[in-house]
C-alpha cells in the first residue's frame, strides 16, 4: 500500500502537496523541524457486572497535532477538524509560538520501508458486537464457576483501532494501522470470618479477534482472577523491612519498568535530572542482568511498526551484563544529544507532545532453574504478580505493589501474604540480583504506563530472579 491508498489520503482526500504545504506553514516563522501527526481512533468497550451487561459504548475521535521545534523549544497546536483551513490554522499557531531564526531546506516527503508486526486482517473492533459481548459473559460465568466463594465478578472487553500518519520536515512520511484489544476480569471472594479479597487478571495485544477464542480465552483470565482472590483469603500479614525477594516470571517485570526504564528515558537524562544521568558505561546492575526495550515483537501490546514521530521501532539494549548501555530517545532528545533515534517517541493522542517512552521492557533469561532459586532462600518472599508501580526518577526511589505473594521458609513457598508495596532505589536495586532464571516470560498484555499525564500501552517481562535485599512494606 502506498500513500495514495492510505487511510488519510483516501478518506480525507489529502495529497502529498497538502502535507508539504502544512509543513511549510509550520516552519513559516522559523524553526528547524516540524511534524504533523494525524490520528483517527475508534474504540469500543463492553462491561459486565452482577452478570448483567450494564454498559456498552463506542465512538470515534480524530485530529491532527502540529509541532515545530526551534533549538530546544517546542511549539504545539492541534485541531479536531481535518479541514485544510483548520490544519493550516493549527500549523500557524505552532509556528508563532516556536518562532526562531533558523530556516530549513525543504525536503520532499518519502515513504520509508514498511513492515507489519501486527498483520491483523479483521481488527477486533470490526467484529460483530454480539461476539465481543459474548466474551464478557463467558468471563463472568467462568469466574463464578471457579469456586463457590466468588461472589462478585466484573469483566471488561475493550478494543481500539488507531490509524496514524506522520509527516515531517525531514522528509519522513509514514502511516500505520494499530489494532489493540484486551479483556480484564476482577473477582471478589469471601468466606465466613474473613474480609473479602479481590483478584485481577487480563490480557490481549495487537491481535485478531480469534486470539480470544483460541489462544487466551475469557475463561483463562477469569479463572486466574478468581484463583488470586481465593488465594488471598488465607493470606497473612506481609513482613516489614529488608528481606530476600524472589520475583516470579512475567508481570513482575514491572520492576524493570520502574527501577530502570523510566530513569533511562533520554529527556530526563539530557536534562540531567535522572538518577541514571551520566552513568553510561557504568555498572548499575549485577552482571547477570541484561535489560532490553523492544518495540518490534509481533502482536505485543507495547509494539509499534513506527513510533509516533514516524521512526521505526527497534530492539534497544539498555543494560548489558550489568553495564548501562543506552537511553530511550525521541526526536528532540536525539537531536540535542546527537544520538541516533531509537523509535521510542510516543504520545497518548494528537493532543499531546511526544516524549521518550518504553515499549516492551524485559530482562533476558539466565541459567538458573526457577525451582533452584526458591530452594536457595532460607527466608524471604516470592512475588507472583503485581498491581502497579511508580518512580521518582531524580532520587531513583521506586515502588511496586505485590498483588500475589508468598512467604519463603526454608526454601519452600509456604503461606500467601497480604498485598504490600516493595521499595528500592533504581541504580542500587539490581546490584543485589544474585540469580536469574531460565524462564523468561512476557506479561499477558494489560500494561498502561503514565508519564506527565500521558498514558500509553506497554509490555514488560522477566524471568524468575532473586534479589538478595529489598524493603518490603508489610506490617508484620
Amino acid at each position, binding site marked *: 500500500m502506498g500513500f495514495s491508498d492510505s487511510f488519510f489520503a483516501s478518506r480525507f482526500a489529502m495529497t502529498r502537496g497538502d502535507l508539504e504545504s502544512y509543513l511549510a506553514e509550520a516552519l513559516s516563522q522559523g524553526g528547524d523541524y516540524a511534524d504533523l501527526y494525524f490520528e483517527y481512533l475508534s474504540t469500543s*468497550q463492553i462491561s459486565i*457486572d*452482577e452478570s*448483567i*451487561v*450494564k*454498559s*456498552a*459504548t*463506542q*465512538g*470515534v*475521535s480524530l*485530529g491532527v497535532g502540529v509541532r515545530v521545534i526551534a533549538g*530546544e*523549544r*517546542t*511549539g*504545539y*497546536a*492541534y*485541531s*479536531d477538524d481535518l479541514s485544510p483551513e483548520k490544519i493550516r490554522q*493549527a500549523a500557524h*499557531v505552532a509556528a508563532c*509560538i516556536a518562532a526562531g531564526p533558523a530556516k530549513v531546506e525543504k525536503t520532499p516527503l518519502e515513504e520509508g520501508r514498511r513492515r507489519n508486526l501486527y498483520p491483523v486482517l479483521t481488527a477486533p473492533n470490526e467484529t460483530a*458486537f*454480539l461476539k465481543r*459481548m459474548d466474551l464478557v459473559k463467558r468471563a463472568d460465568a467462568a469466574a463464578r464457576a471457579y469456586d463457590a466463594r466468588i*461472589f*462478585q465478578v*466484573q469483566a471488561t472487553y475493550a478494543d481500539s483501532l488507531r490509524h496514524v500518519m506522520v509527516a515531517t520536515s525531514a522528509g519522513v512520511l509514514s502511516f500505520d494501522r494499530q489494532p489493540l484489544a484486551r479483556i480484564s476480569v476482577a473477582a*471478589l471472594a469471601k468466606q465466613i470470618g474473613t*474480609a*473479602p*479479597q*479481590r483478584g485481577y487478571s487480563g490480557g490481549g495485544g495487537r491481535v485478531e479477534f480469534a486470539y480470544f477464542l483460541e489462544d487466551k480465552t475469557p475463561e483463562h483470565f477469569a479463572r486466574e482472577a478468581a484463583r488470586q482472590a481465593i488465594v488471598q483469603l488465607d493470606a497473612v500479614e506481609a513482613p*516489614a523491612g*529488608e528481606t530476600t525477594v524472589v520475583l516470579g516470571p512475567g508481570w513482575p517485570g514491572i520492576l524493570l519498568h520502574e527501577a530502570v526504564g523510566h530513569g533511562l528515558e533520554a529527556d530526563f537524562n539530557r*536534562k540531567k*535530572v535522572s*538518577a541514571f544521568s551520566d552513568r553510561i558505561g557504568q555498572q548499575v546492575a549485577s552482571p547477570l542482568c541484561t535489560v532490553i526495550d523492544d518495540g518490534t515483537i509481533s502482536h505485543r501490546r507495547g509494539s509499534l511498526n513506527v513510533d509516533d514521530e514516524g521512526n521505526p521501532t527497534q530492539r534497544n539494549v539498555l543494560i548489558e551484563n550489568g553495564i548501562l548501555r543506552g537511553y530511550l530517545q525521541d526526536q528532540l532528545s536525539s537531536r540535542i544529544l546527537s544520538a541516533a533515534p531509537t523509535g521510542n517517541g510516543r504520545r497518548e493522542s494528537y493532543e499531546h*507532545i511526544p516524549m521518550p517512552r518504553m515499549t516492551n521492557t524485559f530482562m533476558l533469561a539466565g541459567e538458573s532453574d526457577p525451582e533452584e532459586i526458591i530452594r536457595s532462600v532460607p527466608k524471604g518472599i516470592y512475588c507472583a504478580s503485581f498491581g*502497579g*508501580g*511508580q518512580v*521518582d*526518577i*531524580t*532520587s531513583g526511589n*521506586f515502588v511496586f*505493589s505485590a498483588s500475589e505473594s508468598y512467604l519463603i521458609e526454608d526454601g519452600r513457598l509456604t503461606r500467601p501474604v497480604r*498485598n*504490600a508495596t516493595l*521499595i*528500592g532505589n533504581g541504580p542500587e536495586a539490581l546490584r543485589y540480583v544474585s540469580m536469574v532464571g531460565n524462564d523468561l516470560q512476557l506479561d499477558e498484555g494489560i500494561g498502561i504506563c503514565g508519564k506527565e499525564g500521558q498514558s500509553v500501552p506497554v509490555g514488560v517481562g522477566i524471568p524468575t530472579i532473586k534479589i538478595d535485599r529489598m*524493603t518490603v*512494606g*508489610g*506490617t508484620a
Partner: protein
Amino acid sequence: MSQNHLAELAAETVKQALDRGASEAECTISEGNEFSANVRMREVESLKQAGSRGAGLRVLIGKRAGSAYTSDLSADGIHRMVASAVELAAITSDDPHAGLPDAEELGTIPSDLQLYCADVERLETPFKIDLARTAEAAALDADPRITNSEGGSFDSRLGRRIFANSRGFMGEYRSSYCSLAAVPVARQGESMERDYWVSMARSFAGLEPAAHVGQVAAERVVRRLGARKVETQRVPVVFEPRTARSLLGSIFEAVHGESIYRQASFLAGKLGEKVAAETLTVIDDGTIAGLFGSSPFDDEGVPTRRTTVIERGVLKSYLLNTYTARKLGMKTTGNASRGLSGNAGIGHGNLFLERGERTPAEIIAGVSNGFYVTELIGSGVSVVTGDYSRGAAGIWIRNGELAFPVSEVTIAGNLNNMLMDVEVIGQDLEFRGSTAAPTLLIREMTVGGR
C-alpha cells in the same frame, strides 16, 4: 460554535435518539481550550495552545443501555453517534435499576458558583511565560544547592459543559482554571532530589504570587537532601496537608456507591457505625463558590449538595448517583460523574476533612519519635480490605522537632485502624484541589526500612 448552538445541538441529539427508538436519552457536550507554557533553566521549553470539543450520548431502550461518543459534531457525525448508541442498547442486558433520575430530582443550583473568571482568558502569552519564568527563577535563586530544574509552568483551561436529557433537563456552565508550578532539582554530594509546589485557582487573581511558588518549591526540595533510610519500626505518623489529602481519596473510594453495593469496601454496610476517631468529620460539598469540586448540577442533571460523610467518627452517608442509590434503596447524593459517554460513575465535589484546633508545629511538638510524611508514591491501598502500604519520604521527628530527612521507606497499616487512630487534626485546612485535609497525626503505623 456559539453557546446557543451547542445547547440546541444537545437537545436535538436527544430528540434524534428518541426518534430512532430510544425510550430515554441523555447527551453531554463539552468544549475546552487549553494553554500551557513551560520554562526550563530560564528558557522557554514548550508552548501549547489548542481547543477541542466532543459529544457523548447514552440511550435506554426499556431497561437496556447503550452509549457512544464522537469528536465530529457535524450533522453526519451526530447522526452516526446516535445510530451507534441505539445499536448497542438493542443488545445489552435488561438491568432493572437502569434509568434516568426522576424528574423532580433534576435541577441546577441557582446561585453563581464562580466557576468561570474572565481574567484567565485575558492573559497575554508573554505574561504567562513570564509567570512560569519567575516561578522557576525564584526556586533556582533560592539556594546554591538548587542547580537544576524540571522547570516552571503556567497552564490554563477554559471549558464549557452542556447536559440535556429526555426528561426535560437542560443545563450548562462554563469553567476556568489556571495553575502555576515550579519543579526544582537540588544536589548535595551524591544526593539528588526533586520536589514541586503548585498553586491553582479558577481565577488568575486567586493564584499565589509566582515568586512564592518558586520559593516554597525550593524550601521543599532542599530539606530532602541527604535523606536516609531508617530502621523498621512502629511509630506515630504525621501527614502534612499534601499527603493527608490522599487519605480522603481512599475514604472516597470506600464510600463510593459502586464499592458499597458490590461489598467491595471496608466501609460497606457500616452506616451509623463508628468507623473513625471522634476527631474526624468528613464533608463532601459541591456547592462552595470558586472551588474545583463545585458544579451547579452533577453529570445526570441533579443539583449538587453538601453531604456529611463521616460525623465525629460515625459513618453518615455514602456518595451515590441515581443507579447506585436505586440499588441500595436510597436517594442520589448528586455525585454522578462521567466523561462524555457511558453510564454515569461517581465523583466527589469538594471532599474535605474538617479542621481541628492545633497548629502543625504543636502537632509535631507532641511527638517524641515519629515520621512526618511529605511524599507518598505507589498505589498500595485496597479499599476492599483496607490494607494500606505505600512508599514514603519525609522528615524524622525527634523530641518534637523535625530532625533529618528520610526516604526509601514504606508506611503500612489498615485503613480501619488508621481512621480509628487519628489522634490529632490540625487547623491548617486549605483547598488546593477538590480534596483537602489539614495536618493529621495517626497514633501508630509500621515504617518499613532497614
